[in-house]
């Protein structure tokens, strides 16, 4: 089965050095690109989505050449891709494999669900404290209301 998945992954060609972000929920691939600001990226970038996955049914994958993310940078995607695996590639070889972690603070990327929050009425970057990592509950630094689960949307 693993071989099967590997073969399918290879439809998107391998990279020499860089980071592979695997097991992204298909519907959130473009959100990940946005959060990591990859649309501005100047090096080789390979994006696959709606690929078959034994684990997830369908999945997305992003391969970023010549880029190694800091953990605070990459953990931002945990909100949209909690299942993501990070694979560090050096000289075509996997040197590291990690899971993303939900960060303690979330800045700028999430929209406060409270329409009466000042951040939805003025140009203010949002800030949240993650108060529950399992159920994903974020407390707004400004209005103090809790944005959780299905209410989480991205700016």
């Amino acid at each position, binding site marked *: 089965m693993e071989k099967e998945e590997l073969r399918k992954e290879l439809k998107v060609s391998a990279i020499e050095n860089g980071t592979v972000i695997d097991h992204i929920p298909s519907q959130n691939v473009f959100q990940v690109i946005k959060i990591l600001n990859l649309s501005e990226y100047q090096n080789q970038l390979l994006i696959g989505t709606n690929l078959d996955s034994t684990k997830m049914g369908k999945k997305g994958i992003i391969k970023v050449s010549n880029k190694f993310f800091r953990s605070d940078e990459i953990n931002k995607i945990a909100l949209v891709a909690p299942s993501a695996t990070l694979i560090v590639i050096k000289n075509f070889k996997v040197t590291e494999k990690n899971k993303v972690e939900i960060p303690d603070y979330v800045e700028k990327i999430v929209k406060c669900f409270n329409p009466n*929050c000042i951040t939805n009425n003025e140009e*203010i970057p949002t800030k949240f404290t993650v108060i529950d990592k399992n159920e994903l509950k974020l407390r707004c630094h400004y*209005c103090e209301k809790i944005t959780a689960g299905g209410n989480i949307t991205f700016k």
Partner: protein
Amino acid sequence: MKNKSLVSINDFTREEHIRILELAGIFEKHPKQRILADYVVATLFFEPSTRTRLSFESAATRLGAQVIGFTDAASSSVQKGESLRDTILTVSNYCDLIVIRHPKEGSARFASEVAKVPVINAGDGANQHPTQTLLDLYSIRKTQGTLDNLQIAFVGDLKYGRTVHSLVMALCNYNTTFHLVSPLELKLPSAVKIHIKEKNLTYHQYTDLSEIIQKADILYMTRIQKERFSDPLDYEKVKSAYVLKNSMLDGAKPNLRVLHPLPRVNEITTDVDDNPKAYYFTQALNGVFVRQALLAAILGVVD
């Protein structure tokens, strides 16, 4: 507390709350002291709130400060489309402290991050109104002699009332037993009950007001607003169930006091007003002393 902004009741520690209450006691005895004669206080009211604004302005004026500001957004540059950020940046050049009232939640926190001077939140939408909480604490302490180990009953709209939420949070520092009386539709939100549970304190919930009157040290009444009900019939059903009448206070503890953040509509009948247990008008007066204490402490003229 010098130069410290007060946006949320939890921005100040329990010790700082107590210090403000002690200072307020001094200002109650000597309300007219010109200790802020060299200071300018700006009151920026982006929505009208006559009671709160006058209370702040009275506090500042009695201490000799000059007060500048506006009373609603229509008479300010907001009308021309200026952002809150720009208004705050500009005004903080003209004053030593900003008092802000704004209809959007989180506006006061944002203002405190932008301003070069300390900010006191005088109400940000449905979020926080910490000076109300401090005057409630002052009123409780003054009438009971302590804040510790009291039986405090909250009655009415416990779901939407921000004064209730902040006061419950503040009282969690004093080993309070909470009695929560409300219609089922307007129970205290679980986000607030979490604070009670975190401190291992006890709360009891009731739908019938008469059950609790004999046990309570403080009866904190609130207004039930019609617009909180999707079905007007539900409102009609509950509106008379949470009305305090004078006869209901027979058999209450001698130290019981009735508090209400005001304005009152019909949830306390006027025959209660002459009962020595009625404290809500004195409670409003206490707001001036508490605000004097805050202005003086934040501007650093008292320790």
